[in-house]
């Protein structure tokens, strides 16, 4: 008595997902290309390391970065104990500064400011730049013209000089004192840098606008806003991500330069402050003690170099991953 199993699939159309394996999405494909690139993986590891350092600075730093240890000025680190005639102590891994504060703890806290300066303005820049660039590219006409004239002027302004002028002039105003002067710095960085992003997005939109899929979307009556956000924006994400990866280190360098010139972050003196010191400010301190305690200068300098190098590796990797045609030509 063999019962015949009813064939379930025969009387209906085979489902699409049974026939076609869903392919990897573009993002997944780019990701797998990215993690095959050794340099960018190293870059990502370094960046994550510094992000963790910045986030958990209060747990990871061995000492209070503001505590002044009297009589322990300019101590060399234990591994370079014979460098000066001041005795090293093993608990100060990178020695102490001119006031007897632990250099390692200060460098760890410096990571916090540098990471914030790298990422927060970049987010603002991307937001403003993308919105204005999309609008200018999509609407065109007068909006577009205005944007282009504005970019001409901002490009002519040497940007570092603009930051310096803003920081010097507005430092003592109430705005300049918020968040130890960082808010003003964020604002100045954003004002100059959104323009580049806007120009990039505008160019992308102008070329994508002519593509068949946008025309098709328009033919079936898709609203403008939906075309902009669902059709054009995802397609221009690649260059945008790459430019963001190169913006972050640029901002970190800018902060370091401004701090080094003494117009960046105001060094905090009370330990309740979230932003204690920055790498640039540390280098300014270290400049005067270059012979007695070179690690005060060297440690933040190495950190800046490492972070920037890591972002360059990641940026190059992202460019190759997101646009394989460009591979090896840059």
């Amino acid at each position, binding site marked *: 008595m063999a019962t015949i199993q009813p064939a379930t699939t025969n009387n209906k159309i085979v489902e699409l997902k049974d026939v076609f394996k869903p392919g990897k999405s573009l993002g997944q494909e780019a990701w797998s290309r990215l993690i095959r690139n050794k340099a960018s993986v190293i870059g990502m590891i370094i960046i994550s390391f510094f992000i963790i350092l910045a986030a958990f600075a209060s747990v990871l730093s061995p000492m209070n970065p503001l505590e002044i240890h009297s009589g322990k000025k300019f101590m060399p680190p234990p591994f370079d104990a014979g460098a000066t005639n001041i005795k090293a102590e093993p608990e100060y891994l990178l020695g102490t500064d001119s006031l007897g504060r632990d250099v390692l703890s200060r460098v760890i806290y410096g990571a916090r400011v540098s990471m914030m300066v790298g990422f927060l303005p970049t987010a603002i820049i991307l937001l403003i730049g993308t919105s204005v660039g999309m609008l200018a590219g999509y609407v065109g006409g007068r909006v577009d013209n205005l944007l282009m004239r504005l970019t001409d002027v901002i490009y002519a302004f040497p940007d570092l000089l603009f930051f310096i002028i803003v920081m010097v002039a507005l430092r*003592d105003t109430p705005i300049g004192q918020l968040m130890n002067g960082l808010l003003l710095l964020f604002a100045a960085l954003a004002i100059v840098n959104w323009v580049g992003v806007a120009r990039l997005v505008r160019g992308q939109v102008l070329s994508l606008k002519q593509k068949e899929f946008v025309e098709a979307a328009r033919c079936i009556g898709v609203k403008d806003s939906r075309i902009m956000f669902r059709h054009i924006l995802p397609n221009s994400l690649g260059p945008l991500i790459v430019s963001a990866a190169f913006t972050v280190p640029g901002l970190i360098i800018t902060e370091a330069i401004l701090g080094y010139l003494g117009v960046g972050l105001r060094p905090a003196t009370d330990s309740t402050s979230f932003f204690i010191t920055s790498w640039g400010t540390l280098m300014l301190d270290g400049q005067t003690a*270059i012979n007695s305690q070179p690690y005060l200068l060297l440690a933040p300098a190495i950190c800046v170099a490492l972070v920037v190098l890591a972002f360059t590796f990641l940026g190059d990797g992202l460019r190759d991953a997101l646009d394989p045609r460009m591979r090896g030509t840059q």
Partner: protein
Amino acid sequence: MVTYLFRRLFWLIPVLITVSAVTFIIMRSAPGGPWDTDADRRQVDAATAKSLAAYYGLDKPMWRQFMAYVIGDTNSQTKEYVCGMICGNLGPSYRQRGRTVQDILFSAPEGKTFWQSRFGYSIRLGVMALAMAVFIGIPIGIIAALKQNTIADYVALFIATSGISVPSFVLAIFLIIIFASKLHWIDIVVDDWTQVKYWFMPMIVLGFGTLAFTARLTRSSMLEVIRQDYVRTARAKGLAERAVVFVHMLKNALIPVITILGPALAGLVTGSFIIETMFSFPGMGRAYVQAIGQRDYSMIMGTTLIYAALVAIANLSVDLIYVFIDPRIRLEE
């Protein structure tokens, strides 16, 4: 061509006016005035401050002050017309009494040539750094491209990547600590900049980033050219390798490289202020940093304007150089 040049030069005017307006507004919104001195120095009393403000025209409304800065104005006390920025007058320095900004930047000390002025020093350092970048960077790029995916290529790429990413002042810190502080090979405190040997260090530090960028750009544009049909044709017809490389490849591959030289020089001249400060180099950049430290607003403003003009002219030079070296590009619209 000539009309294009004039149109572009004409465009410089609104750009420079906007730059000066922005700088002017930011500078004037700074709290405190030029007569505020440090608390420990002798204070300017109210009556003197008032007459000083009248003498320098600082009691007038903002727009009038700006016009005076750009075009010029009659002095209310001496009744004579003082020309402004358009005559090259950048106003008196607030901190170095009795000297104007243009005097500080462009005048050499007694008996010296223009090249001994602050501006002259900066220009010379910038040109030297650019020359180093070009004469070392381009050959590195060519060798890397010709020997793609060999050790030479990887070494060149490593130099290029690290040179582009490590900021020049961080590089300066490394080099100063290694060569001056540890090895005592070089002197950092220099009194006599007429000796050539002292120029090497700032030149290397300043030019290294541009060198790396030039090498990378040369390599990538050479790699593009190597795959072109006309290069294969040149090889196929039996030309010597040297002729192929120098005549057929290089001539085309250098076009993008040459176009970045203008902005690169502007970047070197304007970007040098940290390097100049670190090496106590007597140039315009160090004067600028000192002005920041002293809050010498008119000096900061004047220097910013000169920098902006340099950048604008450098960007203009790109388009012009393009026409001369690449006959495929025409500027007439």
